[in-house]
C-alpha cells in the first residue's frame, strides 16, 4: 500500500503544480487577486504531497519492503539503519524524489514567509517554482518511478554501494541538493522580475537571504563530499577536479558571484541585468550538475544508471529552461533601468572585479568539464582533462581574487580611495611578507606557489582583521567606544569578515598541506618501522576482523614521535558480500596541527602488505575553513535586515502606527 500511496501523492503533486504554475501567472498578468492568491495554498499542498511521497519511500526502505524494486536494488536487510535511511537518496530515483521534496519545501517557505511580498511578485515566483517542479515530477513519473513493484518479491535486497555506506556521505546529498535547489529561488525571483520588467533594491533584499541559505548548504555539501573523498576513497587527496566535483563547484562559483552582485543591486541599484543573468546561470549550472551527474554521461560513483531516455529528458528540460529564460532575458533585460555608472575604484567596482574573476573561473571549469564530452561527441576522440589543466587555469584567477579580497571591503561605496585602503593594509602587507619570507627560508627556496600561498594567507587573514579594526576604530578611540561600536555593527558585517577569514583558512590548509606533506608508499612486513615526517609508523600486526555486513582485514600501526607513542591507527580493507565489492577504510588521526593518515592494501604474498602513510600538516583547515565560511553566512543571515520580509514588515508596522496616530 505504502508504495501506491507515495506514487499517488506524486501524481497529485503534479496536478497541484500544474494549477500553481498557470492560474497565479495568468492572475498576475490580469491583476486578478483570487487567482494570484491561489499560489500560496497550492505551494503548501504541493509540499505536503511531496512529503507524503518522500516519506512513503523512506518507510519502504526502513521496513525493507522488498516488493518495491527501488528497495530491492539499493537496500539489504542486514544494512545498519542509518544507511537504510540514507539509501533512500543513495540512488537515482530516490535522489530525484528528494530533489522535488526540497524544491517544494522552498516553495512552501515562500508561501509562508512571503506574505508581505507584493502579491504579483509572489504569485509569479511560486508559478515559476511550480514549473520547475512540473519538469522534475514528470521526469520522475515517466522515466524514474521509485515506487515500481516487483512480483514475486525477492527474499533480500542487492545492497547499497559500500562506498556510500559512510556517515559523512549519508548527509552529503541532502546538503548538496538543499544548495542546488535553493538557487531555484534566485532563479524564480529573476524570472518573475523579468516578467514584471522591474528590479529594485527591495527585490535584491528578497533574493539575498535565499541565495545565502542555498550558498551555505552548498558549501557544506561540497565540503562534506570533499571530506568523504579524502578519508573514504583512501586516495589521500581532497579535490580531484573530477567532473562530478566540478558539477557541484560551478554553481558554487556562480552562486558566490551572485551573492556579491546582489549586494550592488541592493545598495547601489545597479548591475541589475548582470545579477538577473547570474541568477539564471547559477540555477542552470545546478541543473547541469544534476544532469551531468545523474544521466550517466559522466562515470563515477554518482552515475547510478545510464538510461538514454533519462539523459534525453534532462537534456530537453535543460534546453527548455536555459533557452526559455535566456530568450526572456534578451527581450526584457534592456527595459531594466540601471542606477547609472560608477567609478571602478569603489566598493561596487571591487564587487564587479570579484564577479568577473569568479565568472571567468566558473567558465574555465565549465570548459574543462565539458570539453572531453564535446570532443567525444564531435570527433570520437577520447581525451581527459585533469588536475594539471585546472590548476594551471584556476590558480592564476584565484590569486588576484584573494589579493583584492582584502582591499575591497576597505573601499567606500561610489568613490573609493585605493591608496588609502592599501595604506591601511600596511600591517597585512607586512604580515604577508613575513609569511612569504618565513616559508621561503623554511623550504630553502622551495616551490614558488607555496611561498605565494602562504603570503596570501597572511595578507587576507590580517586584511580582514584590519578591516574590522577600522570599523571599530580600534586603538584610535577609547576601548569602551570601540566596544560600543562593536555591539552596533550589523551582523552582516561580522558575517562578511568571518566568511572572508574562512577563505584565508581554506587557502592555509591547501597551501600548507600541499607544501609540507610527507608520505610513504611501499610494502611493509609486520614489525617494520618507517618514518613519515616527524612520526614513526610501526606495523604491529595484520589480522581479520568481522564487521556488521562485511569482512575486514585490519592492520594495526603504532605511531610514535621521538620514541613516545602517540596513537594506534587501524586502517582496514573491507570485503562486502552484497553487492560484492572491496573497499579501503583508511585510518585518520585528525588534529588542527596535522593529520596522520594510514591505508593498508593487498598482501604481496611474501608476508608484506602494501601501505600508504601520510603526514599532512594543517590539512583539516580546508574543511574547518569551509565551515567558518558557512558560519559567516549564517551570522549574516541572522542580521535583522536580512530576515526574510523584515524590511517591509517594519515599513508596514510604521504605516500602521502612522494610521493609528492619524486616528488619534
Amino acid at each position, binding site marked *: 500500500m505504502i508504495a501506491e500511496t507515495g506514487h499517488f501523492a506524486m501524481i497529485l503533486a503534479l496536478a497541484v503544480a500544474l494549477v500553481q504554475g498557470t492560474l497565479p501567472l495568468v492572475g498576475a498578468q490580469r491583476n486578478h487577486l483570487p487567482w494570484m492568491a491561489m499560489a500560496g495554498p497550492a505551494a503548501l499542498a504541493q509540499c505536503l504531497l511531496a512529503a507524503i511521497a518522500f516519506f512513503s519511500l523512506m518507510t519502504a526502505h526502513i521496513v525493507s519492503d522488498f516488493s518495491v524494486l527501488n528497495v530491492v536494488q539499493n537496500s539489504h536487510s542486514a544494512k545498519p539503519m542509518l544507511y537504510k535511511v540514507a539509501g533512500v537518496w543513495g540512488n537515482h530515483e530516490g535522489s530525484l524524489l528528494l530533489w522535488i521534496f526540497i524544491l517544494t519545501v522552498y516553495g512552501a517557505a515562500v508561501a509562508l514567509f512571503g506574505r508581505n511580498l507584493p502579491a504579483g511578485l509572489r504569485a509569479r515566483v511560486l508559478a515559476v517554482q511550480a514549473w520547475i517542479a512540473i519538469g522534475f515530477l514528470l521526469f520522475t513519473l515517466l522515466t524514474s518511478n521509485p515506487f515500481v513493484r516487483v512480483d514475486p518479491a525477492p527474499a533480500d535486497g542487492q545492497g547499497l554501494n559500500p562506498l556510500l555506506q559512510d556517515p559523512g556521505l549519508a548527509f552529503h546529498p541532502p546538503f548538496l541538493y538543499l544548495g542546488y535547489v535553493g538557487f531555484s529561488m534566485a532563479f524564480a525571483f529573476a524570472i518573475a522580475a523579468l516578467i514584471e520588467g522591474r528590479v529594485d533594491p527591495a527585490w535584491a533584499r528578497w533574493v539575498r537571504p535565499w541565495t545565502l541559505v542555498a550558498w551555505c548548504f552548498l558549501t557544506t555539501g561540497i565540503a562534506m563530499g570533499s571530506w568523504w573523498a579524502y578519508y573514504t576513497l583512501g586516495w589521500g587527496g581532497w579535490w580531484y577536479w573530477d567532473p562530478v566535483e566540478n558539477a557541484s563547484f560551478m554553481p558554487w562559483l556562480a552562486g558566490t558571484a551572485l551573492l556579491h552582485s546582489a549586494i550592488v543591486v541592493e545598495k547601489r541599484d545597479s548591475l541589475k541585468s548582470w545579477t538577473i543573468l547570474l541568477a539564471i546561470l547559477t540555477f542552470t549550472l545546478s541543473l547541469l550538475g544534476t544532469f551531468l551527474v545523474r544521466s550517466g554521461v559522466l*562515470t563515477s560513483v554518482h552515475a547510478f544508471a545510464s538510461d538514454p531516455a533519462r539523459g534525453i529528458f534532462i537534456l530537453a528540460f535543460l534546453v527548455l529552461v536555459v533557452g526559455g529564460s535566456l530568450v526572456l532575458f534578451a527581450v526584457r533585460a534592456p527595459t531594466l533601468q540601471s542606477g547609472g555608472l560608477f567609478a571602478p575604484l569603489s566598493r561596487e567596482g571591487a564587487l564587479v572585479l570579484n564577479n568577473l574573476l569568479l565568472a571567468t573561473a566558473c567558465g574555465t571549469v565549465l570548459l574543462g568539464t565539458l570539453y572531453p564530452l564535446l570532443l567525444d561527441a564531435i570527433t570520437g576522440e577520447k581525451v581527459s582533462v585533469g588536475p594539471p*589543466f585546472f590548476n594551471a587555469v584556476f590558480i592564476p584567477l584565484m590569486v588576484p581574487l584573494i589579493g583584492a579580497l582584502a582591499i575591497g571591503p576597505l573601499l567606500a561605496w561610489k568613490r573609493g580611495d585605493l591608496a588609502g585602503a592599501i595604506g591601511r593594509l600596511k600591517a597585512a602587507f607586512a604580515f604577508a611578507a613575513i609569511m612569504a619570507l618565513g616559508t621561503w627560508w623554511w623550504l630553502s627556496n622551495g616551490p614558488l606557489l607555496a611561498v605565494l600561498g602562504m603570503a596570501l594567507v597572511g595578507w587576507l587573514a590580517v586584511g580582514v582583521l584590519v578591516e574590522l579594526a577600522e570599523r571599530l576604530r580600534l586603538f584610535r578611540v577609547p576601548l569602551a567606544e570601540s566596544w560600543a561600536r562593536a555591539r552596533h555593527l550589523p551582523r552582516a558585517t561580522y558575517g562578511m569578515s568571518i566568511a572572508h577569514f574562512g577563505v584565508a583558512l581554506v587557502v592555509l590548509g591547501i597551501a600548507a598541506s600541499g607544501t609540507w606533506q610527507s608520505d610513504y608508499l611501499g610494502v611493509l612486513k609486520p614489525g617494520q618501522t618507517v618514518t613519515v615526517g616527524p612520526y614513526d609508523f610501526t606495523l604491529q600486526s595484520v589480522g581479520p576482523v568481522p564487521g556488521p555486513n562485511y569482512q575486514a582485514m585490519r592492520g594495526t600501526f603504532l605511531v610514535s614521535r621521538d620514541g613516545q607513542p602517540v596513537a594506534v591507527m587501524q586502517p582496514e580493507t573491507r570485503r562486502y558480500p552484497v*553487492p560484492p565489492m572491496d573497499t579501503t577504510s583508511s585510518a585518520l588521526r585528525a588534529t588542527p596541527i596535522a593529520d596522520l593518515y594510514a591505508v593498508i592494501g593487498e598482501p604481496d604474498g611474501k608476508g608484506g602488505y602494501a*601501505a600508504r602513510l601520510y603526514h599532512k600538516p594543517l590539512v583539516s583547515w580546508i574543511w574547518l575553513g569551509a565551515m567558518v565560511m558557512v558560519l559567516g553566512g549564517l551570522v549574516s543571515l541572522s542580521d535583522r535586515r536580512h530576515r526574510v520580509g523584515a524590511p517591509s514588515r517594519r515599513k508596514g508596522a510604521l504605516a500602521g502606527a502612522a494610521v493609528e496616530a492619524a486616528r488619534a
Partner: protein
Amino acid sequence: MVLAGMTALGVATALVLTAFRDNIVFFYSPSDIQTKHVAPGQRIRIGGLVEAKSVVREGNTTEFVVTDKAHDLKVRYTGLLPDLFREGQGVVANGKLGPGGIFIADEVLAKHDEKYMPPEVVDALKKTGHWEEGATR
C-alpha cells in the same frame, strides 16, 4: 568596465589555451598504440581489460597486460593499486610509453563498483568486436 571584462576574458582565453596544449591527455587502446604513432614520453591514457594471469607483483611494483582482445600492452606501475583492480576486469591508466614498448603508468584507475566499466574500454572492446553486451553489467 567593458575594458576590464575584455581583459579578464583575454587572460582567461590565454590561460585556457596554454593549459589545454600542455595538459590534455588522449586515450589510446592497445590497438591504437599499434596503429597510431605515439611519441615516447608523451602523456597518454590507456585502457582495456587486465589479461587473466598476467599480473606479476614485485614489491611495490606491479606488471600486468592490458588487452582489447586484439592487441596487448604491457604496463608497469609502482604504487598501491585501487581496490577494484582485478584480472579480467576493465582498467584505465595514465602514464607514458617507455623503452621496449612498456607503458609506465603513474596512475591506475579501476572502477568504483562491480557494475561499472570505463566507457573508453567499452568503446575499445566494441571496435575490436569483443564487447559482450551485459557481460559485465
